[in-house]
C-alpha cells in the first residue's frame, strides 16, 4: 500500500505561485546553470574529459614529487604504455561491437613466447608470422562466436585458457630469452631526436584506427553492430564478416603488443602480459567507450591508456606496492563504468 511519503509534493508549486517579478531571477539562474552545463556537455561530447584527466594527473604527481616528473619519466611512461595501448585499442574495437575479449592479454603472452622462439630459430620471418597468427586466432574467435552463437566472453575466456596452455607447452613452462635478432624488435624503444618511437608508432596506429572507425563505411558498421545488430543486418550488412574482421584486427594489434613487449624485455614467458587484461579494459572504459557497445572507440583510447599508465607510474612514485595495483584497476573499472554508463537507457523503458 502506498504511504503518503511516496507522494512527493511538487516543489514547483511554490515557484509557480510566486509574483511575476521574481521569475526573472530564477530564469537567470537557470541560464547560468545552463552555461556551466553547456561547457560540461561540450567537454563530454567531444570526449575531452580523459585528456583533461591526463593533464591533471601529471600536475598532481608533479606537485607530490616534483623531481619524479621529468622528461625521462615521461618517456618511460610512453615506453611502458605502448603495449598496454595496443591491447587497449584491440579491446576497444571489440567493445565497440558490443563484445568483450577476455583472451587479449593471454594471447599476447602466447605470441611473445612464440616470437622469442621463432626469432631464435627462424629469424626475421618470425615477426610477420606472429602478426599473422594473431590475426588468425582473432578471426577464429570471432567466427566461432558468431557461427555457433556463443557469447564472446565465453569464447574468449576459453581461448585464453587454450593459448595459455599452449604458451606453457611452447616455452617449457619457463622463461625463454632472445639470443639473436634482438635488434629486430628493440628499435621500438629508441628515441631518435628525443622522441620515443614507441609512443609515435602507438599514436599513429591509434589515429589510423580512430579514422577507420569514425570515417570509413566499414568502420561505422562496427559501431552499428554494437548498437543494434539486428537492424544492422536488416540494412544489408554482413554482421558475421564484420565481427570476424573486428576480432581479426584486434588480433593484429595484440600481435604488435607482443612485439613491443619482447622488444622491451628481450625475454618472454607464458604469463608475461597476463597482468594487462584488467588495465586494458580499464583503459577502454576510462577512455569513455561504453561497455555496452556502440559508442566511443579508438580515438578515446589513447588518453584512457595514458591515464592507466600514468596511474601505474604515479602509484610507483607515491610508493604503492605492486601487489596493490590490480586492486586499484579493479576499482577503477567499476567506478568508470558506474560513472559513464547511460543509466537513463536502462531505467527509462524507452
Amino acid at each position, binding site marked *: *500500500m*502506498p504511504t503518503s511519503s*511516496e*507522494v*512527493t*509534493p*511538487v*516543489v*514547483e*508549486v511554490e*515557484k*509557480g505561485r510566486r509574483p511575476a517579478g521574481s521569475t526573472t531571477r530564477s530564469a537567470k539562474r537557470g541560464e547560468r546553470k545552463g552555461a556551466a552545463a553547456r561547457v560540461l556537455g561540450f567537454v563530454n561530447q567531444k570526449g575531452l574529459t580523459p585528456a583533461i584527466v591526463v593533464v591533471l594527473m601529471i600536475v598532481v604527481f608533479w606537485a607530490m614529487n616534483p623531481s619524479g616528473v621529468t622528461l625521462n619519466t615521461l618517456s618511460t611512461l610512453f615506453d611502458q604504455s605502448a603495449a598496454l595501448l595496443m591491447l587497449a585499442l584491440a579491446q576497444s574495437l571489440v567493445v565497440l561491437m558490443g563484445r568483450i575479449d577476455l583472451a587479449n592479454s593471454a594471447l599476447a603472452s602466447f605470441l611473445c613466447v612464440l616470437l622469442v622462439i621463432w626469432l631464435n630459430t627462424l629469424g626475421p620471418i618470425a615477426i610477420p608470422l606472429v602478426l599473422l597468427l594473431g590475426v588468425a586466432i582473432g578471426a577464429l574467435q570471432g567466427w566461432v562466436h558468431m557461427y555457433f552463437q556463443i557469447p564472446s566472453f565465453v569464447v574468449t575466456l576459453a581461448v585464453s585458457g587454450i593459448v595459455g596452455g599452449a604458451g606453457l607447452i611452447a616455452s617449457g613452462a619457463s622463461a625463454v630469452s632472445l639470443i639473436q635478432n634482438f635488434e629486430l624488435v628493440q628499435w621500438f624503444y629508441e628515441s631518435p631526436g628525443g622522441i620515443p618511437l614507441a609512443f609515435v608508432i602507438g599514436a599513429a596506429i591509434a589515429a589510423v584506427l580512430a579514422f577507420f572507425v569514425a*570515417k*570509413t*563505411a*566499414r568502420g*561505422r*558498421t562496427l*559501431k*552499428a553492430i*554494437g*548498437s*543494434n545488430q*539486428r*537492424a*544492422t*543486418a*536488416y*540494412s*544489408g*550488412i*554482413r554482421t558475421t564478416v564484420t565481427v570476424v574482421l573486428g576480432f581479426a584486427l584486434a588480433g593484429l594489434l595484440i600481435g604488435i603488443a607482443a612485439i613491443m613487449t619482447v622488444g622491451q624485455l628481450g625475454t618472454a614467458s607464458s604469463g608475461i602480459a597476463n597482468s594487462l587484461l584488467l588495465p586494458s579494459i580499464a583503459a577502454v572504459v576510462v577512455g569513455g567507450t561504453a561497455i555496452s557497445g*556502440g*559508442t566511443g572507440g579508438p580515438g578515446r583510447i589513447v588518453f584512457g591508456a595514458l591515464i592507466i599508465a600514468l596511474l601505474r607510474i604515479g602509484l610507483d612514485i607515491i610508493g604503492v606496492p605492486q601487489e596493490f595495483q590490480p586492486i586499484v584497476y579493479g576499482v577503477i573499472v567499476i567506478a568508470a563504468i558506474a560513472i559513464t554508463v547511460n543509466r537513463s537507457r536502462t*531505467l*527509462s*523503458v*524507452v
Partner: protein
Amino acid sequence: MAQTSTEAPALRLTDVSKSFGVVNALTKVSLEIRPREVVGLIGENGAGKSSLLKILSGNQTADSGTMELRGRPVTFSSISQAMSNGVAMVYQEQSLLPNVSVAENILLGNERGAVRDGFYRWKQMHRTAQRHLDEVKSGVSPSDITDTLPFAQRQMVEVAKALATGDGSPYDPVILLDEPTSVLESGDIETLFSVIRRVKEHASIVFVSHRLEEVLEICDRVYVMRDGEVVAEVDPAEADVDQLFRLMVGRDLTSGYFREDLSTEPTPDVRLAIESLTGPGFSDVSLGINRGEIVSILGVQDSGRENLGRVLFGALPAAHGSVRIDGERVGLRSTRDAVARGIGYLPSERKIDGAIMGMSVADNMTLAHPDVVSTLGVMRSRRVREVADEWIRRLAIKTSGPAAEMVNLSGGNQQKVVLAKWMLAPDLRVLILDTPTRGLDVGAKSEVYAILHGLAAKGVSIILLADSLEEGIYVSHRVITMADGKVTGEFTSRPGNRPSRTSLIERML
C-alpha cells in the same frame, strides 16, 4: 462522462512544459483526466503525445508546471513511484523483458504478494498473472517466455501488465495507453476495446492513436495536440474524422488520402519473378511483379506474408524456389545479396529491426548505401550531412538535424528515417514494406502513400504488406491475399474497379 462534478480529477496537469535542448516537446499543457473516463490524445507525429504520457508516468520529469493526482500535488521521480500511486503506462515501443516469463513481466515492479523474502512464489504469481491475462482475454500462458510470443500477443501482455498496477492500490488506477492498437489486428482491437470498456468502471484511461475512427469510437473526451500544445478539446459525439484531422494539422485533409491521383500505370515488363518459393511459414508462392507496380499482400497473423517478405530480402532462408530480378537470379542467401540486387526492406518492428537508436539520423539513413556518401570507403561528412538534410526535408521529418540521435525522434519520424534509408539507394528496384505506416499520423501516412506512388512511377516495384484493408485496396495496383502460408487470391485494383472488403476478407481467413 460518468464523473460527478464534485469528484476531483484523477490527474490534472497545469501549464506543463518540457523541452529537449532546442525542441519544445510540450508547451504549457493543461488538461485533466477524470475518474472513470477514456481520454483520447491525438496529434501528428512529434506533437508531444508520448512526451506527455512519459511525464504522467514518472518516466520523465517536466521542466515546469504542476501535476495533481486525485487533488493532491505530486511529482513522480520514477516509474515505480507512479506505479505505486496507480499510474501505469503501456509504451508505444514495447518494453517487456524478452527472456523471462509472461508472469514475471506482468508483475514486474509490482510483485506484492508474489514475492516473499525476496523469492518469487511462483504459484501465487502465476495465479495473479493468469487473472490479468483473463481480463484481457488473452490465451497466453503465464509461464510462456515473452519473446516467443508474436507481437500482438505481447501487446496484450503489456496491457495486462498495466492493469496489474491497479491491483491492490487503494485508488482507482490511471492507465496510459500509447498507441496500443497500432500493432493489433481488428479482432484484437475489439478485444482491447471491450477490455477498456470494462476497466473503465473503476479506472481512468488515456488512449493515444493515429486511427481517428478508433478514437471517436472508444473515447469519452479527446484532446488534440499540435506542436507541443493542446489546441482543442473535443466531444467525440459531436465530431468526425475530418474535423479531428483539421484540428490536428491545421488544414483540411486533402481529398484523396491514398493519393490515387499520383498512381501511374506499371510498365508491362516483369521486374520481380517469384517461382514456387517455399520458406518458413509459407509454401509454393509464385508471383510476378512488373516495373512500377505496387502489389499489396493482405493476410492475418501467421498467413506467412511477413516471412515471405523476409525471405525475399534474404533475412530468412528459403527452402526452395527461385527469385529473379530483371531476369537475373537473386541469391537469397543474405540481406547483403538482396541490397546488392537493389532490394530494400522496411521491417515492421521499427525499434528492434529498423532504427539504430544509438546512432544519428544521418548514420541511420546512409547505413545501407554508404557508397552514396563515401569515396573509396571513406565517408564524406559534408555529403552525409547534405544527403540527410535533403531527406529530412523531402519527408518532412521533425528533428533538430542530421546529427540528432535516433532515440530522440518521435516514433513516426523514426519510421520516416528508416524509409529514407532505402529511398536514397541509387538503384532501388524492389522495395518490400512490412506495414510501413504503422504508428504514422494521418498526414504522414498520406505522405508515405505519395512517396510510394512516386517510387513506382520511377519504375520501382513495391510489395506492400498493408496495415489495413483500405490501404491494401487503394494504394496498390494489385492485391494478393494469403492464408495459412498460401496465396489464396489475386485481385486487380484500379480506380473504379477495386476489390471489395468482403471478397478480400473471405480469402484471408
